[in-house]
């Protein structure tokens, strides 16, 4: 096996991973970032009522639904990563 001075198996592993990352086109990278945020948004939207609202005995309106505000935060994030 060809061995270079100062290069270990860790270097080879790291270099292979680095080459893999460099080979990914930036539009695909952007898609990964936006896609992950959208997946998280989907998870938030599917959360059951008892995990996103105060207990039923506390009278609250639509603004107490944490799902809504979490979705707003993630939606803005996805938009930011789509544009910049």
């Amino acid at each position, binding site marked *: 096996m060809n061995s270079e*001075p*100062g*290069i*270990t198996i*860790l*270097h080879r592993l*790291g270099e292979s991973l*680095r080459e893999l*990352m*460099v080979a*990914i086109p*930036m539009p695909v*990278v*952007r898609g*990964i*970032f936006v896609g*992950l*945020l959208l997946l*998280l948004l989907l998870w*938030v939207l599917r*959360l059951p009522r008892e*995990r*996103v*609202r*105060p*207990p039923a005995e*506390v009278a609250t309106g639509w603004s*107490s639904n*944490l799902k809504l*505000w*979490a979705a*707003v*935060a*993630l939606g*803005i*994030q996805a938009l*930011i*990563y789509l544009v*910049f």
Partner: protein
Amino acid sequence: MNATGLGTLDFIVVAVYLLGTIALGLAIGWKFESGRDFFLAGRSLPWWAIGMSLVASDIGGTDIIGVGGAAYSFGLSVANFEWIGCVPAMIVAAFIFVPVFWRTGIYTIPEFMERRFNAGMRVVLALCWLIFMACNLGIMLFASAKMLAVMIGGGSLALWIVVTALFVGVYTFFGGLKAVVYTDVIQCAVMIAGCLLVLFLGLRDLGGWDGLHQSLDALGERTDHHTDLLVPADRDSPFVWPAILFGLAMVLSPAYWIGNQAIVQRSLGAKSQFQAQASYVWGALLKILIPVIIAVPGIIAVAKFPDLADGDQAFPTLVSELLPTGLRGVFLAAFIAALMSSVDSYLNASATVVTNDFYLRYLNRNADDHRQLVVGRWVTVILMIWAIFFAFVVQWMDESGKASGIYAIFQTLMAFFQGPALAVILCGFLWKRANGIGALTGFLCGVALSVSLFVLDRWHESFGLEPLFQVPEPFLYFSVWAFLGALAVIVVVSLITRPDSPEKTAFLKGETTSSSP
């Protein structure tokens, strides 16, 4: 002459702000009767105050200057630390982790570790956090004093170290977590107002967003990618996209928002489980604004002053050029607010860990409420004295040229154990078969792995090796490998050893009171 050209009116604004902060802290702490009041604010905090405190604590005075400086040098990519490096983790924490932490009535994250795993895991994690927070207090004091001396243009570093420590120490001593959170609310508002002012006047001066783009275009190749969030993997930058995605977004950020005592402690003091969750969601919404008011001024500085010798001069230069007398005082107050909000958080969190994870756990398990309050306050004093001492040590190292890279080393120190800590917390929550021996072994192996990678990379020439990583300050990569290493060891050791008793996981489901083991 100071870097920001401050006048008498500016100093009056700052003095009013500081006296108001101290008065608020004293007023809050006067009525305290128990350790629960001091460490968890009597579980009385509203969501909006905790959310603002989360944001204020996360942004230190050095961050305002440092993030602005990094944006000046590297562009908008530094904003990843506030966006993908905060928002997703805060949302996940709000719906999965924070409700359980609040319900179980714990005071500290290490306490959670003992209830889920064993006492060894609690001690090791408490020690890691304590060493990091206590040393970081000294470094924050020194870094803040250094910047205060430049911005105010007078006074020795020693003077500013002691003055800052006394101001923060007094209201944290009296008011505990409640004073920390409510002063953070003011500090968050002042910080946002001060930085918004710089942003607004800077953009107006350049003719708006389009004017900023035109000015950057005129600078040519140097600023070609200054408004790009995502940096290609082969660029010579610490913020390349694989480091941001795998190191920051998937490891360091969740570890910070789920496992950092100084952060999570606020939500433990919430009025209800719902309010604790709401505070994290509110914090995430506020976080979206932070890069706009801190990083964008750094980019405005590139357009206006492209030849600054050091990126860290970007914010002070903008302030001195754009803001009139009086408003410069608002910015200085914002800067002081940012530095105080971080120091007070780490001071209170360190005192909570020492008192709960060491004193109450090993020295005096039967201490009554009043005793806990007294001990908490005295530990705060001792930690403040230690922080002043350590700040002087850092100053001595800085003046004798021995502090080279000390800030980066302490950033890296956090990366050493944050990845393994996240692996332990995730396994604790999501995998019933994870046991105490597996968690402790995995954590220690993860820390050992990240330290080994750090040593092999930093002193590679001594080992006759090429550098392991091709980016400067690769602390984001250490955390990824440490996380994966710890995770693998936890799984293997847990599977080949006996499972823990079922009660170790049963408490996750709905117990409502604290019962120290």
